[in-house]
């Protein structure tokens, strides 16, 4: 399912400035660029974790941020699922309680379905401190998905996983895309990863968009 994503804003953090003026329709939009390009800042602005100084953010026809019109949708009402690079699992909760944290009441069916797709049902009673990098990413992904987000943000989900395991995790992300039909913004600095998962790409460098279009634009 493709959704319209409108990002027009300026976000300043110290000496760094991220300026975006894009209007794309995509099922999976890859944000591709080197470290320090502003990829994570872009995700955090969409999630509401950082507030741009000006501009507008509109996802799937819903305006999330437009200070000129006095619109600032609170983080908890944005319906944006976020999987940060470090997964950010709650350290004091078990895997099961992490996954169900944002689930609406009586949604055991969704939790079971997502856990089955991501093959993490067996981890339910484990403490998160004992999970591997790949398991942490899948649990964080499940936790975001059970809230039925309008858009899923994934920040380099394979960065904390060793090369041998990357090929085993990517299929899970594809299953989320194909079986749960969740639109995504997928941040990566690996062109091959972006090609494997996304249909459109936004190329960022030093806080500016330096390329946009289908994934065919990406270097081979």
């Amino acid at each position, binding site marked *: 399912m493709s959704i319209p994503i409108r990002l027009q804003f300026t976000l300043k953090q110290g000496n760094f400035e991220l300026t975006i003026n894009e209007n794309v329709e995509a099922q999976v939009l890859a944000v591709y660029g080197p470290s320090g390009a502003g990829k994570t800042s872009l995700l955090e602005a969409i999630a509401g974790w950082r507030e741009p100084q000006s501009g507008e953010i509109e996802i799937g026809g819903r305006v999330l941020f437009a200070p000129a019109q006095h619109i600032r949708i609170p983080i908890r009402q944005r319906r944006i699922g976020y999987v940060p690079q470090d997964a950010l699992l709650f350290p*004091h909760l078990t895997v099961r309680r992490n996954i169900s944290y944002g689930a609406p009441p009586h949604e055991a069916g969704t939790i079971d379905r997502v856990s089955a797709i991501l093959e993490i049902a067996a981890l339910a009673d484990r403490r998160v401190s004992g999970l591997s990098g790949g398991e942490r990413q899948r649990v964080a992904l499940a936790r975001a998905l059970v809230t039925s987000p309008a858009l899923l943000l994934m920040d380099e989900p394979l960065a904390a996983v060793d090369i041998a395991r990357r090929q085993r995790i990517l299929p899970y992300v594809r299953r989320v895309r194909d079986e749960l039909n969740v639109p995504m913004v997928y941040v990566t600095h690996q062109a091959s990863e972006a090609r494997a998962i996304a249909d459109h790409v936004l190329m960022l460098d030093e806080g500016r968009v330096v390329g946009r279009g289908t994934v065919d634009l990406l270097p081979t």
Partner: protein
Amino acid sequence: MTPELMQITIFTLAVALVATATLLVPGTLLAWLLARSEFPGKALLETVVSLPLVMPPVATGLILLWVFGTRGPFGGLGFEIIFTWKAVVLAMAIMGLPLLVRTARPGFEQVPRRYELMAESLGAGRLRVLWTITLPLALRSVIGGTLLAFSRALGEFGATVVVAGSIPGRTLTLPVAIYTATETGQDRQAAALLAISVTMAFGAVWVSNRLVYATSKNPG
């Protein structure tokens, strides 16, 4: 232990427990508010909360006497406070409050803000974030601060003697009884009371220190 010593010890423990329980919720909320919020008058509130730490306890007692005495602003509430066990609780709570707030606050500040943002992204409101994420992650500091406030309550003398006096069986606490025994030359009584007092204070401070030290080593 004589029945008189037993009565004084049990009374002191009981009022210290009631005082600690009374300040637990407001003290914890105050510590969280100071750690996580910016608001007008914050610096003034921080100063006022800390005043009992640096002011002579007798002066604090005198202020309480004026405020809660029959001619004070809270004097006409319809129930007697001054020179009752409630005055002992009041003095202990006021003197213990800064210790709870100043110990719990760094615990709240050490909880990474990103955990709270993640909980909000999963749909949690501010109070749910506090109850399910921030408080459990800062729990050691809160317990440590509570134990310090409790041990301060056990040792409270100056404010207590002004607002509650030293009425045997009604308001006489361990520290006041030690003073009275010393003044009246009952050295054996004073030594026995001292031993009880030191043992209880040692236990509370030791446990509190273990908890706070473990927090500073392992904030997550």
